[in-house]
């Protein structure tokens, strides 16, 4: 019988660098599960989400922190991401189990990589690659946007005053980090 085991190796695991007084960190064990609201049963789905997470699904372009620390990000009218810390490869099952068929779930954990950018120069660095207006008046804490940076589809979430979470496709993780690092070194 097989006695092999598989060791995970997430593409950007361990990234923690500081350039231009700005820190770039890959959060560990981040799980991402997409939830799609069934057509005609959106209200029931939203109610189930609220019941489970304690907060309502936010509007499109916004995110909200659930009581358990999970972040709900509404990406479109009928779909959202649940982003939470979860080390094992069963995140989808966990979310599906809690929402009990009220939504369609797909595991997106390995589809994405995430980098957290924090520091006074974070916005200045992002100005070089992010087409979204990140001025605090235009992009509040919790706001999110899916856009394109250096030819890479990217999800950006403002998680704090000077902190942003950036997520992009895992296969292009190296180019993604390179784009952000270059932005930082170009303003340093």
């Amino acid at each position, binding site marked *: *019988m*097989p*006695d*092999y*085991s*598989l*060791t*995970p*190796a*997430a*593409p950007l695991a361990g990234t923690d660098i500081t350039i231009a007084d700005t820190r770039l960190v890959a959060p560990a064990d981040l799980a991402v599960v*997409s939830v*799609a609201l*069934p*057509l*005609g049963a959106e209200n029931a789905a939203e109610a189930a989400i609220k019941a489970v997470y304690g907060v309502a699904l936010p509007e499109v372009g916004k995110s909200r922190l659930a009581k358990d620390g999970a972040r709900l990000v509404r990406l479109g009218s*009928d*779909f959202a991401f649940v982003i939470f810390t979860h080390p094992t*490869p*069963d995140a989808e099952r966990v979310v599906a189990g809690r929402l009990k068929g009220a939504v*369609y779930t*797909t*595991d*997106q*954990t*390995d*589809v*994405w990589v995430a980098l957290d950018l924090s520091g006074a120069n974070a916005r200045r660095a992002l*100005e*070089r*690659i*992010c*087409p*979204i*207006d990140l*001025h605090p*008046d*235009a992009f509040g804490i919790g706001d999110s946007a899916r856009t394109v940076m*250096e*030819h*890479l589809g990217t999800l950006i979430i403002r998680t704090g005053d000077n902190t942003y979470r950036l997520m992009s*496709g*895992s*296969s*292009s*993780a*190296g*180019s*993604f980090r*390179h*784009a952000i690092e*270059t*932005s930082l070194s*170009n303003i340093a």
Partner: protein
Amino acid sequence: MSQINRISGGQIDRAQEVKFTFNGKWMRGHPGDTLASALLANGQRLVGRSFKYHRPRGIFTAGSEEPNALVELRKGAHQEPNTRATVTELFDGLHANSQNHRGSLEHDLMAVTDFLSPFLSAGFYYKTFMWPRAFWEKLYEPIIRKSAGLGRLSMQEDPDIYDKGYLHCDLLVIGAGPAGLMAALAAGRSGARVILADEDFTLGGRLNSETLEVGGMPGARWAKEALVELAAMGNVRLMARTTVYGAYDHGVYGALERCTDHLATSGGKPRQILWRVTSKRAVLAAGATERPIAFGNNDRPGVMLAGSVRSYANRYGVTPGQQVAVFTNNDDGWRTAADLVAKGVHVPAIIDVRDAPAVCDVPGARHIRNAGVVDTVGRKGLKSVTLTDGQMIPVDCLAVSGGWNPNVHLTCHQRGRPTWRDDISAFVPGRDLPPGMAVAGAANGAMTLAAALAEGRAVANAQIEALGFKPGKADLPRAEDEPRDCVPYWHVRESTKRGWLDLQNDVTVKDVKQSHREGFRSVEHLKRYTTLGMATDQGKTANIPALAIMAECTGKTIPETGTTIFRPPYTPVPIGALGGRSRGRDFRPYRLTPSHVWAKNNGATFVEVGNWLRAQWFARPGEKGWRDSVDREVLATRKSVGICDVTTLGKIDVQGRDAAAFLNKVYANGFAKLAVGRVRYGLMLREDGIAYDDGTTARMSENHFVMTTTTANAVLVFRRLEFARQCLWPDMDVHLISTTDGWAQFAVAGPNARNLLRKVVDAAHDISNEAFPFMACGEVTVCNGTPARLFRISFSGELAYEVAVPARYGNAMMDVLMQAGQEFDATPYGTEALGVMRIEKGHAAGNELNGQTTAHNLGMGRMVSQTKECIGNVLSQRPEMLREDAVKLVGFRPVDRDRGLIAGSHFITKGDAASMDNDQGWMSSVAYSPSLGHSVGLGFIKNGDTRMGEIVRAVSPVHGTEMEVEIVSAHFIDPAGERPRA
């Protein structure tokens, strides 16, 4: 060389000295100088040669409109041709060389063209150089090309880096002269987000070049104070050295910031940044550009624009000459005379075309009324001017003012047309401005200082009020409305010598007249025929006078004759800046497969597949070339088992109550009845009936499917599926999400595939042939509990599976599969072996599904259902797409088995001539089949399915070869399809 022309004052730092070279000669200047002001200070009058006649030329202006003073700046790979000396900030160690001459600048051999100029008038080249025909390319054109062009590229890779960025604001103010500063102050104080950008390195615009007072202090000082206030506002961003070069749709502006061009080296930082500014509103306060008056030999070094002469004196503390006469048709020219005299420069004469009293008192200057300049003397530097009455005045500089043209350029970038204003004899912005833009100050024809300040404030206030801001308090500083009378006067008619209009391209008054004579009378014909306005300055000083002369010829007014409208960019933008970071290996992102590290450590050669890097083959020691590796990989797979990372195939999660019905509409073949736990091959058509993509789709549960697409079409298929879901069948409950990057997927192929997988798949899952037959799928666990998906599908034609694990386990999975496969000699294989095996098996891939072929061509016509609604089935039935003699996909093998087939060969029936009329089809894919020991090919040939066994010619004239090939079944291996079911 000493700074013989340095005079008092100016905004230069005299405490510091910087050294630079021009044509190898060391000179000195000060911080705050431009290269042009420093050259003038050093008495360097001759700085370049013109484009066509190689006439000696000097500095003509003090700004970005400069036509003459173009240099090759810097050395080696940093060499930057056609750089305007007038906007180049001086730095220590600057090297500049003049350009466009053969021999030295002083003794340019090409100047002979000037003496031949009677034969080189407008459009001469359209009328000759035609005989004999071959001589154009062999003789005439090379000569023309060599003598044309201006500066030289280094031919080396640009060593600097560039960046881009995105800015957003409520109000973009373009130009930081009096109107722009006032606009920014008004908007800034209201709290609006403001960007104030100016191409100059010192903000303030003409205030830095004039002696006029604002708010009771010198204008330049007022500007500095305004800038201090603006800099302190958190809502205002000041951007010096930033040219807003283009007005694009919906308030988007292109801007180029020059970050390190004023430094000796960029120090590894971006040389320039290309900003895309998204503005809600904009105020264009770009000022005005002075225009010359044409007269005989008005192109001599020393003939300059009057306002520029004033700039050099007031801003840079330099006089372009010791004896400076002024030639003007307007009041403004007089200020040059007055300012020079105030600085102690001798102004012998003010030549005014008007019969009007003196505008102001200029001590020492003769006021010559009602006169013009007809000629000049001094080939390499002005010595004297000759007036209409014949008198000669010795001067070394002539300051010419023909009036000022508002800088309307950006108002035209969305095809807006300027309108003519007689009172200032100039075009001003029309009504059709780019939406969101308003114009203020001289750019709008408000030609006096007080008017510019007032308009800057008023326009900015109106703009921000429209955005809901309450205008802040911004008092208007006191300023004067200086005299601005100007009469239309374009060229000195009494002059019989050539009078230049476009200095760089050598277009003269005579050329415009000839253009008219030959029927090139519309403005665009004039420009194209004479090359007027086509030079690096885009005719900023030349277009309007030329238009005026054409108007004279036609007897029409200037606005009737036409307008020239401007297109981006306002001033030239380096291609490097437009390219930003996207060059070299950073041109596009790399996508790596989950087992990339393993592959790299195991001898893989990688190949670009779209943005992916895939392992092409895995070389082993002793193998002499790629074929050795590929043959081995194929044979090992067919003999035992091979493993290939196939993650790059697109994967789309399809869920919903209507998922099955949806798939049934997007695939040409049936999907409604696919059982849970089964996979089906699907063929997708475009709506026009052409085969588009193929792949397998697995039904994981009642309402959950996993679709695979080809690597190339993953994004496109997803887009089309969303279109079908949202636009065609909007009430279907179906949801799509890409999982391509989420699953590391491996093909495990070969007779021992199941034996290998049994060691990896956890025992709870029965993968026997009975429990998990061909085209089965399911969720399993591997390696003690890691979730995985298993699909029993085969691209190679062997017993094969694809096993998918979450991508984070991909590299480890490859390792485990190889370890577990050791006993079977498991072999990793790359895309080449994959390709060989699919050709051996007769599977169509990208070369066959090339967007030109139908299911009918591919031999899959019967898969296209006509009994259900699905994309593409109706148009696939058009008569000429179903022709019996349509090309069909079949196999080919060389009659002489030792020969290699060539992909791209065309087929010719034996006995026919090789011509397009006899073209029977083409070879789409070929490979050497190690299994068969000869070359095999797939291709399309007319009636192919009925021509089995026929020998045809496969011709490849581009290789100079042809060979006989036999038409055979495309299924070279296991035609009965038994292996995958084993």
